[in-house]
């Protein structure tokens, strides 16, 4: 008898970030399918091949997407949205405190734009905060990651919306310089306030994850 749990783990690695129950439930389904095909008189090899079709190719990708979606949405408000919003508030406050304390947040110059280097360096704390708050609510690894990434996602969305609005206005005034400045800034601001903070936040979430595991082992 094939080890269906092992097969699901191997073929759908992404489920590891979700609930372990998903793996067990899918393995049970495959086991039942396989045995049903054997009862129909198929050889073990054919039954195995036909059962495996359920988790191969596009079906596997679709399955992974749907399960990730479900894993994220289960308890979304307490496990992702609230920790994520608190993390966003912490990240924004940090940026504000840096500016208020006359610690220049914008110290790194790149292609004519300013990037908030100090803010980035402190973002792992916010990422860790999001992950720990989500963990306290029983969030899965995927939900903890999502909670720590929410500030970057919100900032990135806001920045992109501002740019779309800016381009629309630029189109009306038809000022080529304005369009050129916005295009240049588009290459700086979304990475500076979206992608790079995401990496730093995720780093914080990762540190929190490892520290919690070590702490549990010690306890």
């Amino acid at each position, binding site marked *: 008898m094939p080890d269906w749990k092992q097969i699901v783990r191997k073929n759908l690695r992404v489920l590891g970030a979700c609930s372990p*129950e*998903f793996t*067990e*439930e*899918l393995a*049970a*389904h495959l*086991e*039942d*399918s396989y045995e*049903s095909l054997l009862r129909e008189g198929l050889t073990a090899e054919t039954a195995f091949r036909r059962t495996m079709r*359920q*988790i191969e190719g596009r*079906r596997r990708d*679709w*399955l992974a997407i*749907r*399960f990730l*979606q*479900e894993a994220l*949405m*289960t308890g979304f408000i307490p496990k992702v949205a609230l920790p994520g919003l608190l993390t966003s508030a912490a990240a924004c406050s940090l940026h504000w405190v840096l500016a208020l304390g006359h610690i220049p947040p914008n110290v790194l110059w790149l292609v004519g734009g300013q990037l908030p280097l100090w803010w980035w360096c402190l973002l792992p704390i916010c990422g860790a905060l999001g992950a720990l708050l989500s963990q306290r609510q029983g969030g899965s690894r995927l939900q903890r990651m999502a909670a720590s990434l929410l500030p970057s996602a919100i900032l990135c969305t806001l920045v992109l919306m501002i740019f779309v609005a800016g381009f629309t206005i630029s189109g009306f005034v038809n000022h080529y310089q304005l369009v050129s400045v916005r295009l240049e800034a588009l290459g700086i601001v979304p990475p500076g306030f979206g992608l790079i903070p995401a990496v730093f936040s995720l780093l914080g979430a990762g540190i929190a994850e490892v520290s919690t595991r070590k702490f549990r082992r010690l306890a």
Partner: protein
Amino acid sequence: MASVNAQIKRGSAELAVLTLLAQHPLHGYEIAKQIEAQTGGALRFDMASLYPMLHRLERKNWVKAEWQTLPNGRRRRCYRLTASGRKQIAPLREQWRAFFQALQSVTGFQNA
């Protein structure tokens, strides 16, 4: 039996699952097999559509899932209908009845 359009399938799947679970608790594979058998293969669930839907129903508190150990020692996650889920069946049936009546008045289609 002719195959059914994906949109209609999606809409009808919840009603089919709730109606089936109103009879007795079942695990995922049994739900898929019984629906396939009872509809002559017109409604067929793959894992990517069945389990996310069951989990969605669980999130809405229409069904409750719990792990059970079968006589052969295997563990299966059985779904049973909750009181809240039972209350959803009648309105869902009514919606589908209204839908088919509307379709009938436009197309002249008659139920068998």
